[in-house]
């Protein structure tokens, strides 16, 4: 009976790489097993082989090469992912279905996540709140660890060396005997960092080292009951520096994270089973800075805990698959510059139907109800239809809603920057703080304070996808997906009051409405056993709905003619759209198999121009603003299987040595790597 649980990945074992794409099974998109080719939702699977290409060992490095996923660096230096043109804060990241926490300004640092023991990465694009609740507006990324091991003991050791004195060592120990399966892994990463700007005292990335320990245990208690336990511990230490009044401040920045998840699956009959899950995770970041004399200048901390429990039931009856689940989540945060230690409780209930009608038409219908202590309850829905026109041609369409609750920062922040002179107040603390200041007569009202009494609303979205899959032969595939996302009630900070000496006081409001739309196109062609070429492209339009409506009509925006400096009025055509969005992103990937042991990989990724902020003072991004120039990167990798159990990789990332010190801090220039992997079986 154990095999019923493991069957998800079984049929992939010996198929050739390319075929996998057709056979690949996905679970997160539907929370039930289903072939990707038949799934009427835009999903992308990154296979284990693809994960290991180019010597990548962290999630960020793998995911940024994928079509339609753009790695972005914000002005504050936070890295994140953009899917369908939506911000990094709108993507939920899961590890075997459990959420990873610890976000900085909404973005999760994906360099934190080591890809040891990961069998595949599933990427679901478009609003998925109907299954995953808050934050899943843009999509979900699920990392799936190895499901089925081979009997016996197996130890894999790998060692990587790369530019910037980077060392990455990992050890995986796996054991399987009868109903017990154990997988333990250790990953160590150390890097000197790098510096793109010589003229200052600071480094672009300071030296850091981290390690991850993870353990997964699966145990068949009986024929019908399966226990699955995941534990993970991560620790990072990094040198922390800052410049203050021409002197260098030095300190440390530490991150510590752990998670523990356990599930019991009860297989009642061939068409009914139930699963109970408990998950707890904690993320803690600490940093401090000392002056040159060794006196504490500044310190900061962030401590976030999440506890989740869930009960799921699966029914299968004559091609009808149903999932029903309910559970609760408790979150708690303790952080400097917060008025209190906020807590948030959530109870949720969801259900999804997956059925076939009229022989061919596949229907997925899902709904989720989220009940928060502080907000109006949210219903999220999804309807997806898949229609196979012929065996080779499939048309899919889906419509879904998404939401994101205001985060703790937007509610409880109480931060004053005395150097530049401004204050940011979370919405839940703003009114009381402002009223006190007003009574003291030290501020002047800009926005009526009464507007701050009500709570912030959740951001909500509607997502539409229309996809066509055309697979003319076993060796050629075309996938095109048109997408559209409308996000309402976007939360942004806005000036509310002015203090003495012209200091500004900001708070958060639901103000904007944005729309992103575009086309994603993917195609792959494989010449049997010889080579394989993949092409991906995304066209994206992303803009503020209000600006687009008003520009040139109700509101006039001005810019300056770059030649004469004379003011000019902007037209609709001059509006470029949202910040940090590129109109075009593309990639071409070539895998060349010299023989069945040796392989050469090349990938080009391209990102067209974008802008990080408004440079001409009209608050919108127009064609007269300063843009970050478009760029392309090229990675080359060579891998060889020395023997059945030994292999090595060498390669160069960013072979042309592209850098843009002014705007792009996360591209360090050319990187060489060598990677050796040894497997010992008993």
């Amino acid at each position, binding site marked *: 009976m154990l095999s019923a649980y493991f069957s998800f990945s079984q049929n992939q074992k010996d198929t050739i790489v390319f075929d996998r794409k057709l056979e690949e099974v996905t679970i997160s998109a539907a929370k039930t097993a289903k072939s990707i080719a038949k799934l009427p939702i835009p999903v992308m699977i990154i296979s284990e082989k693809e994960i290991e290409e180019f010597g990548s060992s962290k999630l960020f490095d793998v995911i940024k090469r994928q079509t339609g996923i753009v790695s972005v660096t914000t002005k504050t230096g936070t890295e994140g992912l953009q899917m369908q043109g939506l911000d990094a804060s709108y993507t939920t990241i899961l590890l075997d279905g459990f959420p990873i926490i610890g976000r900085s300004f909404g973005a999760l640092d994906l360099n934190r996540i080591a890809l040891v023991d990961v069998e595949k990465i599933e990427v679901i694009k478009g609003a998925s709140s109907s299954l995953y609740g808050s934050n899943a507006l843009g999509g979900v990324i699920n990392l799936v660890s190895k499901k089925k091991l081979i009997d016996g003991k197996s130890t894999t050791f790998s060692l990587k060396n790369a530019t910037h004195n980077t060392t990455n060592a990992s050890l995986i120990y796996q054991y399987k005997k009868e109903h017990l399966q154990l997988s333990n892994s250790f990953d160590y990463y150390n890097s000197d960092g790098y510096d793109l700007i010589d003229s200052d005292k600071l480094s672009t990335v300071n030296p850091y080292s981290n390690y991850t320990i993870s353990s997964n245990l699966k145990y068949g208690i009986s024929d019908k009951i399966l226990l699955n336990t995941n534990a993970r511990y991560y620790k990072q230490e990094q040198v922390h520096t800052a410049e203050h009044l021409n002197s260098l401040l030095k300190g440390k920045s530490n991150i510590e994270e752990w998670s523990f998840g356990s599930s019991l699956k009860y297989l009642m009959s061939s068409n009914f089973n139930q699963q109970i899950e408990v998950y707890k995770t904690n993320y803690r970041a600490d940093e401090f800075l000392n002056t040159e004399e060794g006196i504490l200048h500044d310190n900061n901390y962030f401590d976030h805990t999440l506890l989740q429990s869930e009960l799921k039931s699966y029914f299968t009856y004559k091609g009808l698959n149903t999932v029903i689940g309910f559970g609760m989540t408790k979150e708690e945060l303790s952080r400097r510059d917060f008025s209190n230690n906020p807590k948030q409780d959530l109870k949720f209930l969801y259900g999804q139907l997956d059925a076939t009608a009229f022989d061919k038409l596949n229907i997925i219908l899902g709904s989720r109800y989220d009940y928060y202590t502080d907000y109006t309850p949210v219903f999220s829905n999804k309807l997806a239809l898949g229609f196979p026109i012929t065996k080779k041609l499939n048309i899919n369409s889906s419509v879904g809603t998404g939401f994101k609750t205001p985060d703790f920062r937007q509610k409880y922040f109480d931060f004053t920057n005395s150097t*530049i002179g401004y204050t940011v107040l979370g919405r839940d603390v703003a009114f009381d703080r402002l009223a006190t200041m007003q009574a003291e007569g030290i501020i002047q009202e800009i926005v009526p304070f009464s507007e701050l009494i009500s709570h912030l609303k959740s951001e909500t979205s509607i997502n539409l996808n229309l996809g066509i899959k055309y697979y003319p032969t076993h060796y050629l595939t075309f996938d095109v997906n048109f997408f559209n996302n409308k996000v309402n009630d976007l939360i942004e900070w806005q000036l509310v009051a002015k203090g003495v000496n012209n200091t500004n006081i900001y708070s958060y409001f639901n103000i904007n409405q944005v729309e992103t739309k575009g086309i994603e196109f993917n195609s792959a062609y494989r010449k049997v056993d010889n080579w394989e070429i993949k092409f991906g492209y995304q066209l994206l339009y992303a803009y503020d709905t209000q600006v687009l409506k008003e520009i040139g009509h109700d509101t006039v925006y001005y810019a300056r003619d770059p030649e*004469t*400096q*004379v*003011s000019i*009025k902007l037209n609709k055509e001059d509006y470029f759209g949202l910040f940090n969005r590129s109109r075009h992103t593309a990639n071409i990937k070539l895998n060349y198999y010299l023989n069945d042991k040796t392989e050469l990989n090349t990938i080009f990724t391209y990102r067209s121009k974008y802008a990080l902020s408004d440079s001409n003072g009209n608050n919108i991004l127009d064609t007269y603003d300063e843009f970050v120039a478009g760029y392309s990167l090229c990675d080359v990798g060579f891998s060889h299987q020395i023997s059945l159990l030994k292999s090595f990789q060498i390669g160069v990332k960013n072979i042309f040595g592209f850098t843009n010190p002014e705007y792009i801090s996360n591209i360090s220039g050319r990187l060489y790597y060598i990677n050796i992997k040894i497997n010992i079986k008993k």
Partner: protein
Amino acid sequence: MRYTCLLFLFSLLIFTSCEKTLNKGVIADDVTTFIELDASQYTVNQLDSSLTGKYERFSFSEGDTVSHDNWDVAFKGSTIIINGGESSDQDQPNRVGDAAVYIADGVMSDVRTVDVSKFFQDNLAGPAIIDDLGISGQGWASYDMGTHILSPIAGRILVFRTHDYRYAKMEILYYYDSENPQPLDGDFGGFYTFNYVYQSSGEINF
């Protein structure tokens, strides 16, 4: 005037000589460009960011900087005052006139008529043209906290009543004497390049 940046100057010369061919908004024949009026003789007081130094006076009728009392507008760093109203700091020159000013939204050619109801004069609290380094967004310039560069806000036209009841409109184009100013290296600006139209007849139409 300083000619430290020939390229910028050159582009301005092209502009003044062929302004009629510009497609973005037709500019009247009588637009004059004044290049780099030097109002950089000031120091910044670290305590309250206020400026101390010399006001450079300008007369629309003479089309040049002046040192007599019949000036219309004067500049000291980012501060702009007029020859009307009351003084708000000790550096300010004598006011003998009744000048007034307001800021209109638009491009230069949009301002065809003076709206006399909007006029405002300098007072004890400060100049009529707000000088808060762009914090309020109500003045003539915006300030970039990262680069510390002060830029005139596009689409802001300063409309003046001169000291002797004539009218003028002005668009400030640039505040520095180099193309890539580095305020962190002491390049604080104070060099006004602006376009203006002077209506010498006393009519309120341009």
